[in-house]
């Protein structure tokens, strides 16, 4: 396992030097390997050793894989990682992605559908977990109200999109 992880980390280092698309391909290949144990350990180690200058892509991709492949027992370690992660100075702090991964794992542990994670994160109704069934635009308040449904459990949500700031914000009900 250790040698496999070292090999993958070496591949990531190469990808980082080539291009953003190579970084994305690295994570696609990792996902395609389908080894949950390897994916979990590798992503955790990447996050534990991340440099403050490596914001955005790598943490987002790790979080995306962890929320799908990691066992629920990973939550504790992920919470510890989150405490030590250097904050990104961007407005869209990538630690949000880690928080969402933790939330999804906690929901899975509680036997609930992960669609509820939308409440803890500025999630677009066009996220792949949901299907948008209708949208109504309010010309006075410049808000759009979406009706979205979870693709997995079928739960229906009302989502209000506000576009009055730099980027849209979503309020889930």
């Amino acid at each position: 396992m250790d040698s496999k992880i070292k090999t993958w980390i070496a591949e990531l280092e190469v990808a980082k030097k080539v291009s953003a698309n190579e970084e994305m391909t690295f994570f696609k290949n990792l996902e395609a390997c389908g080894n949950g144990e390897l994916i979990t350990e590798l992503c955790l180690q990447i996050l534990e050793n991340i440099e403050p200058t490596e914001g955005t892509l790598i943490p987002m991709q790790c979080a995306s894989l962890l929320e799908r492949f990691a066992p629920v027992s990973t939550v504790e370690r992920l919470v510890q990682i989150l405490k030590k992660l250097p904050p990104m100075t961007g407005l869209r702090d990538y630690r949000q992605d880690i928080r969402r991964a933790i939330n999804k794992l906690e929901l899975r542990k509680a036997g609930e559908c992960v669609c509820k994670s939308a409440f803890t994160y500025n999630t677009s109704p066009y996220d792949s977990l949901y299907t948008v069934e209708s949208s109504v635009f309010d010309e006075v308040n410049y808000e759009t109200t979406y009706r979205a449904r979870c693709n997995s459990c079928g739960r229906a949500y009302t989502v209000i999109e506000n576009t009055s700031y730099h980027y849209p914000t979503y309020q889930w009900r």
Partner: protein
Amino acid sequence: MISLQKIEKYYETKAGKNYVLRGIDLAIKEGEFISIMGPSGSGKSTLLHILGMLDDPTQGDYLFLDQNVSKMKEKQKTEFHKQYIGFVFQSYHLIDELTVYENIETPLLYQKMSGSERKSMVCDILDRFAIVGKKDLFPNQLSGGQQQLVGIARAVVTSPKLILADEPTGNLNSAQGDEIMQLFKKLNQEGTTIIQVTHSEKNATYGNRVVNLLDGWIQK
């Protein structure tokens, strides 16, 4: 692609109508690279803003892809703008609080797509513009040329049919300006229609047609 018919723009003042644009008839085909030239105050930027649906004419019809923009509601115009138009500004207009990655991602947040699609599109653009190494930096950590590169990257990330550029090299030195103009030329060769406002005869040579404005009129 674009047809402006008898476009007028004026402001009512106590002394009467203050005209900015007068009797503008202009047809632009898909794939053209147009330079709008003229002295300060001749109406160049107003014309560009009308073309970009950021401003409305007082009179006349504006047809974009056979749709009459003049008769559209605000929301429809916003949707059209989002779908088909990228805007590049002289002073870049990047959002200071957002990183390069986030600035480029911003137009995609208004499109109906998932987070993973967004990531792929931003990565493609970062690679295409060779700015991967800058993705976590803020605008004030970049040179003027780099900021404009990000401004253009943000404008093209949604693959717009039309790019409108208002003096895109106005704040750049000559080498940076040439680099940006080469980039526009390449985008145009790849099929994007480009309309730029410029004072520079040299920049106008990158395009294939010049529209001269004087006191709001197109000079024949």
